[in-house]
């Protein structure tokens, strides 16, 4: 994957223009664990105090191993899961406080592309009907205009008009993912949350979908929150990257800076796990020992101290705060 993809050469477009489009502040999502009497015994802290912001037109990659809360973060932002605490601010409005019609209107601006292309399309409906439904929900246009728009958007994601009346099972995984993208695009949102959009696809199809995502981003001036565990994919598509561990954001940096100069020990370990094509290159490898701790009962202090090769005493007691170093590079670690 890493091999065949051209790396993003452009300098991050983030600096200077601090055009924040979406701001996530101290977002928390705890899932209750209920006992036999439906009482809350304890909580799974899936997302534990995450803050970041999206800048208009950028792609923000959110990476981390499975179970670290990156998908939950995406779903909580969209209110598919009710947040436990925190604010998500879009266009001056706190999404977490919206109800009814206001919430529906904000959903025109924030859309999502899902991981599983097989269960994300209703098997009983024709592709055209699936896409048209989104327009119907938002009461846009009449029958003819809607059909026209569906045809247009299908064309944008590389389908012909004869695909309009096909059923989802007549398509392959990559094609279905493109239909999923068309569904997100059709009401003209400004932010799309991509929840591992390519992880269920073959490598050859992955690059096809990623290129489509990039083309569409330029054409519609979209902002992506790109959730993935594939560091190669994230490097290819993101302008900035946030690294999550156990429900917390541990490092955030522009892509090139992160890959050349990772600061947090967890990020270093992640990056040293990327295979290098040249077998003679010697690298310093950081191996993590042990399992990711349970989010029900996260470690005190820095959540990473149980597996960190550089752990100090202070790490067990105090929780590190996010520090901004040079070049927009932020890290939450006592080493810096």
């Amino acid at each position, binding site marked *: 994957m890493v091999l065949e993809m051209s790396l993003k050469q452009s300098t991050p477009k983030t600096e200077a223009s601090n055009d924040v489009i979406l701001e996530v502040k101290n977002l928390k999502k705890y899932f209750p664990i209920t006992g036999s009497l439906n009482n809350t015994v304890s909580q799974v802290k899936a997302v534990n105090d995450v803050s970041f912001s999206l800048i208009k037109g950028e792609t923000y990659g959110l990476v981390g191993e499975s179970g670290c809360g990156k998908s939950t973060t995406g779903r909580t932002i969209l209110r598919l899961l009710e947040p436990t605490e925190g604010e998500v601010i879009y266009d001056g409005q706190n999404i977490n406080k919206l109800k009814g019609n206001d919430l529906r209107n904000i959903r025109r601006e924030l859309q999502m592309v899902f991981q599983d292309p097989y269960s*994300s399309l209703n098997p009983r409906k024709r592709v055209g009907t699936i896409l048209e439904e989104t327009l119907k*929900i938002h009461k846009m246009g009449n029958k003819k205009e809607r059909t026209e728009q569906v045809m247009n958007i299908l064309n944008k994601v590389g389908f012909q008009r*004869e695909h309009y*009346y096909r*059923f989802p099972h007549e398509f392959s995984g990559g094609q279905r993912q493109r239909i999923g993208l068309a569904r997100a695009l059709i009401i003209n949102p400004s932010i799309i949350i991509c929840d591992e959009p390519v992880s269920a696809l073959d490598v050859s199809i992955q690059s096809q979908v990623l290129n489509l995502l990039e083309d569409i981003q330029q054409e519609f001036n979209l902002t992506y929150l790109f959730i993935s565990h594939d560091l190669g994919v994230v490097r290819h598509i993101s302008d900035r990257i946030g690294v999550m561990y156990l429900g917390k954001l541990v490092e955030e940096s522009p892509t090139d800076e992160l890959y050349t100069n990772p600061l947090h020990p967890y990020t270093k370990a992640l990056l040293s796990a990327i295979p290098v094509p040249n077998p003679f290159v010697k690298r310093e490898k950081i191996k993590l020992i042990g399992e990711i701790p349970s989010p029900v009962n996260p470690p005190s202090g820095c959540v990473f101290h149980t597996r960190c090769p550089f752990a100090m005493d202070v790490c067990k007691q105090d929780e590190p705060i996010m520090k901004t170093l040079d070049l927009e590079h932020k890290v939450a670690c006592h080493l810096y």
Partner: protein
Amino acid sequence: MQNVMTEEQLNVLKSDMKKKHRNLLVKRFLSNKLALSGSIIMIVIILLAIIAPFFTSFTPYELDAMKRLKAPGGEHFFGTDNYGRDLFSRVVHGARVSLMIGFAVAIITSILGMIIGLYSAYFKKLDGVLMRISDGLMAFPAILLAIAIMASLGPRLENVIIALTIVFTPSVARTVRSAVLVVKEQTYVEALRAQGASSSRIIWLNIAPNVLSPLIVQATFIFADSIIIEAALSFLGAGIPAPDPSWGNLLYDGKTVIFNAWWMTLFPGIAIMLTVFGLNLFGDGLRDLLDPHNNKAKK
């Protein structure tokens, strides 16, 4: 490249696709032996029930003391019963009653079960209440519950339908509920919520079509079951009141003379058996047919 179609092209395309799918469906139906034979049996029985009364030379109520318990043959096709009534005419008229009850119960339970199943699966709070009620109803054996309800309502055709509806609705609701529980976890339901769809749009336009196939299959089995239970009720004297023929009544009449007049139990028995057999075949065939994932495999 032209990417927007004119209205006309669109309609042509649409009717083409629909025709293709319809042809495929017909072809698959014809190649499905179970569904085909089941539906042939049912069509014959239903046609007999509708048409035959116009051709029988006797009404089901016509008494003839001279011709009591005549064996089949001659002008009495299936023989006569202990009052000298023509058995063929009574079986055919009984078919009307039995099929009508079965059909009505299947339709009403499907509608009620669908509503209860959909809402209790989608809204967790309703689930507890509705499912406990249906658990309570399901705890009674079907036939006992039906008898109890009939005993309190009195033997009448409408009451049989009401009793059987109460007996069968919980099981339909359960079937629908379990199907909905699977469907509502699918990503496309989440996608609809992400797009801001209302819960009634999600429930009726997106989840309901996906639980229709188990429901239709269940409904054909309930059709068959209610014919059997109606027969049992009438046999026990708690169903269709006496002079009117129903298959259960006929069996009841035949019971006392079973050693002298075998035809009085045999023919209604065969009628019940054939109908239930046909319905069950049809239901099994439908189950295979309605699965959308089979579309490709059986081309």
